[in-house]
């Protein structure tokens, strides 16, 4: 994994502190080309990994990337699935079974369910696998060295104690795609303990890690202790704490934490992208 990963929240109007800023971002990134141009700015500054949710608009971005293989030969995407709002809004309207019927490809589930046939454990796992495949379609021929499960799903399974499904996801990503599985969570210490309990060692876990303690569930101390004492390849996200911390302080904090393999950040302007990347390099240099 690269030390610095470029994120996508700014492209899809995800702003944790302001709906107005979200709208401004929607307007700025109305055209897919603008998104790719911004990714190119980060690439020119040495950040070749783009970590993004499986939003419908990524389909076009991937298409543009495929059209220029030479330009994007070192480029990778870390997909994060699923794009949860799509499903959440569908569940509100169609219910859980209705949503599965709508989104699981093929009518395998529809016929099985309507026919009232018994559903075996392996069938539930197959449903999960089919959903992973459906989300992965858009990344065909693109390098995806790590495939992430989004936090809403990871944390839902975590709270429900469904460790076998987390394990099945982990194993399927390795078996089918021959790449590394990753997990996004808002509960990193709890998740790590659960993954360890099913024999997953040194997992890739992306979570909020910031000097303000923002979205570090259970408190910063337990996060810092986990990073110090456990084996984990942590990715720090929301390093600015939702905007609460000045960039310099924010990055100094995460750069100096043990076991933080990578730092994920998103920015819209060339200036902010360049500033973040150079600050991370600066603090990493000092550490050496």
């Amino acid at each position, binding site marked *: 994994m690269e030390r610095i990963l470029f994120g996508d929240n700014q492209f899809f109007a995800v702003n944790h502190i302001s709906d107005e800023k979200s709208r401004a971002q929607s307007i700025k990134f109305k055209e897919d080309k603008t998104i790719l141009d911004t990714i190119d700015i980060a690439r020119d500054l040495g950040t070749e990994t783009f970590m993004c949710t499986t939003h419908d608009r990524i389909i076009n971005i991937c298409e543009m990337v495929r059209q220029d293989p030479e330009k994007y030969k070192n480029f990778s995407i870390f997909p994060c699935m699923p794009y949860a709002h799509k499903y959440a809004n569908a569940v509100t309207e169609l219910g859980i079974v209705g949503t599965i019927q709508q989104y699981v490809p093929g009518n395998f589930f529809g016929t099985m369910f309507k026919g009232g046939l018994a559903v075996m454990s392996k069938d539930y796992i197959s449903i999960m696998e089919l959903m992973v495949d459906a989300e992965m379609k858009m990344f065909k021929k693109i390098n995806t060295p790590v495939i992430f499960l989004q936090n809403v799903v990871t944390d839902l399974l*975590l709270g429900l104690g469904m460790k076998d499904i987390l394990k099945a996801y982990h194993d399927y990503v390795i078996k089918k795609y021959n790449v590394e599985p990753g997990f996004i969570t808002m509960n990193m210490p709890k998740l790590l303990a659960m993954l360890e309990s099913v024999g997953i060692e040194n997992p890739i876990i992306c979570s909020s890690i910031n000097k303000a303690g923002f979205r570090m569930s259970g408190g910063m101390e337990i996060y810092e202790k986990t990073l110090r004492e456990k084996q984990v390849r942590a990715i720090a996200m929301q390093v600015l704490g939702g905007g609460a911390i000045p960039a310099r302080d924010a990055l100094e904090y995460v750069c100096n934490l043990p076991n933080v393999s990578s730092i994920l950040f998103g920015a819209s302007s060339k200036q902010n992208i360049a500033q973040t990347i150079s600050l991370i390099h600066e603090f990493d240099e000092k550490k050496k």
Partner: protein
Amino acid sequence: MIKVALIGAGKMGISHLSILGAHPDVEIVGVADTSKMVNDVLEKYSGFKTFTDYKKMLDTVKPDAVFVAIPTKFHADFVEELLNRNIHLFVEKPFCLKYEQSEKLAAIAKEKKLINQVGYHNKFIGTFDEVKRIISGGHIGNIQHFLGEAYGPVVLKKKQDTWRSDPEEGGGCLMDYASHVIDLLNHIVAPINTVHGSLLKPIYSNKVEDAVYALLETETKISGVLSVNWSEETYRKMSTSITVIGSEGKIISDASELKVYFKSAKCPTGYSKGWNVKYVTDLTEQVDFYLRGEEYSAQIDYFIKAIKGEVPNNKNTFESAAKTDKVISLIKNKKNNA
């Protein structure tokens, strides 16, 4: 440990179940749902005891508290049965289809001294809490007018009918979306007791409204406008906001950002004359387990703490939810100025 059971493992029920599953003071003793598939998954992968008959579950696992997350039309009967069994209750919103039912259940819960809470999670959001504090402190003076809004992308094309598209079952934008805004306005401004006119407009749905617009008035004679639309695709997810205009200032707040204008320097500590902006990140307390917003975890934690006697049972009570149900019925009665 508090022994908790769930009735209704749909979207909200499963979300509650996950948060409860991670709560250190909670033991999940049973789940009742009519879907065999959902029960099957919860048995196989979570190891929960599941039931298709909720009464059988209550007899078998004897919970201290139950979360009720079934369609609203079933709430009245189920909740009455549960109260008669002396069980503490967390019920999803909206509370009941008829406010008379809600009032009756609120009275029973009160008489039996059972902890009762309804899932209006906005009251656990830091920005709205701060709005309440500013208004209660009289910092924006006498309230003159308010605007309550919610928009989101739920119904964006004509689709098959579900219970959400059946007004008899508690479906529709008024029950599902507008209820949140009404409840918040009742809490922050003052209880609404008059509806001067309302428009319930279908956009894509056949049987229910996709938008609600109404002219409201509180018992303290403050006027206001309600504007809610769940067929709004310019929003990524549900967005609720309120604007309150007072003699000494004005507040515009949503779940993430609070903007407040003070006409003079007579304002609370941490604020100054003119515009002030605060973000939810500065106003939110850390939770122990995060699933989909601090407020969802915080409301459950509050309920569990109330059962343990650590906090008063005064947030989102059946009584306050009954007031919201009453406003919903007033809006229905004034539908298209009938």
